[in-house]
């Protein structure tokens, strides 16, 4: 697929999701929490207004899907941004100063990556208690290593180039060299990773919702809907399929955007 198409499709879909999340109260045909037991597990289009059907408590699937975007995107943006900030900072320091700073960060990353990530996140949320903040903290704590590893390698490579030494010959301090000279050259890689990480964060949030460790059950989330839908999959497939589809498309959009950006920003592929 041409890279521009990837960026446009991926970016376009994410923009669409952002708008959906912002205008959820206007777009949702029903209150996502309103129960209507008379219309429980109605198939898509059977009950008037319930375009995507209702779940076992008669709540509108489409409205819950629309409100679920809010949690998914909040986690995607906040958790990915924080993981990026932490990982990039440590990666920059490790790659630039090398020596004991590098040794500490690298060993920490090695140890971190030996833990199974899903198990670790469930453990963390169990300790911190369920809730949006805990989910975000769990994702940051687990996924900063992705940024740290890649940024460290890239920084090391950049710092070896003569422009860093030229800056130091001009009397520029280490902090300024790192910030003004090295960081702009590392930034493309960080952007690509950030986009990919957002997709990962959406999945992790869904996993935690699925096992009931994310936000409280009265807030609609895609993972929560999938968990509910799983129990009644033979009676009402739509409760499971639509949030699953939304999750799939969202992660795909973030990944395509990331891949498109990677190709677009890589000077070797640019020619």
């Amino acid at each position, binding site marked *: 697929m041409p890279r521009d198409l990837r960026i446009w499709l991926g970016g376009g879909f994410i923009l669409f999701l952002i708008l959906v999340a912002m205008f959820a109260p206007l777009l949702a045909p029903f209150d996502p929490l309103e129960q209507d037991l008379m219309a429980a597990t109605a198939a898509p289009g059977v009950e008037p207004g319930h375009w995507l059907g209702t779940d076992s408590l008669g709540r509108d699937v489409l409205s819950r899907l629309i409100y679920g975007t809010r949690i998914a995107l909040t986690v995607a943006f906040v958790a990915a941004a924080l993981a990026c900030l932490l990982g990039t900072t440590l990666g920059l320091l490790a790659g630039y100063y090398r020596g004991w700073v590098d040794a500490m960060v690298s060993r920490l990353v090695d140890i971190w990556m030996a833990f199974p990530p899903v198990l670790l996140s469930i453990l963390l949320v169990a300790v911190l208690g369920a809730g949006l903040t805990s989910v975000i903290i769990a994702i940051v704590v687990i996924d900063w290593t992705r940024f740290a590893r890649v940024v460290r390698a890239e920084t090391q490579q950049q710092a070896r180039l*003569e422009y860093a030494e*030229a800056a130091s010959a*001009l009397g*520029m301090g280490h902090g300024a060299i790192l910030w*003004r000279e090295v960081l*702009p050259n590392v930034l493309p890689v960080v952007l690509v990773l950030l986009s990919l990480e957002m997709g990962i964060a959406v999945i992790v949030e869904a996993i935690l919702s699925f096992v009931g460790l994310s936000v409280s059950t009265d807030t609609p989330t895609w993972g929560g809907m999938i968990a509910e839908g799983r129990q009644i999959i033979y009676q009402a497939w739509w409760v499971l399929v639509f949030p699953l589809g939304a999750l799939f498309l969202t992660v795909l959009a973030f990944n395509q955007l990331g891949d498109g950006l990677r190709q677009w920003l890589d000077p070797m592929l640019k020619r």
Partner: protein
Amino acid sequence: MLIEARNISLDVPDMSHQVLIGHRRKLRILKNVSIALKKGETVGLVGESGSGKTSLGRSLLRLHEPSEGQILFDGQDITHASAAELKPLRRRMQMIFQDPQSSLNPRHTIGSILATALKLNGMDASDKSIAAVLDRVGLPSSAIRRYPHQLSGGQRQRVGIARAVALKPDFVVADEIVSGLDVSTQAQVLDLLKGLRSEMGLALAFISHDLSVVRSLCERVVIMKGGEIIEEGGTAEVFAAPRTAFTRTLIDSIPLPEVRPGWLDS
């Protein structure tokens, strides 16, 4: 003496040996080297790659900290001076790098690269003074808004020279600055350097493996091998009567523009 190195040695960690705990083995890449430059003097540092000529140049600028010995700049001992202590001296000693492709940050415009150099040393960084510097090295003022990759190799090296001489330094280390350029561009860049040298009274440490270039530019020459100085003296004397076999080989390897009669027939 403007700049002087007294018996310096330089150790670097040996990166070919991975260690789990503790310090890496050290490699001694400069062994007991002494060199001195007067104001306005040009000295050629010659040797094969790995001979330590670049390390010596960088040590003179205190981009490396020598393990032993002393470095004096204008009478001041800078052997172990901190970054803050070196800061006021940075304006007076500069470096031109071998590969402008890598020594010019691809994310900054030429204008921003030169402005940074001037600002860091408390000099006027207006567009007007940057244009004047560019003009001096033979580049149009429109280059201010260009990025390094939009210039040719020769133009990029002129920017590298501009960045060093914009600060009006007393001492410049030029590290293989023409080795990446084609021959006609080499000549132009060398002419530019000669002009700047006489105009500013620069002391120049000219690092090169190309003896013909060194011969045309330098008053004195220092031959290095394996981190040591094996021969030094006036350029004319060394070229006329080399004392070591190594220097002899170096000189013999200069291609000469003689043509054997009848070479076309063979």
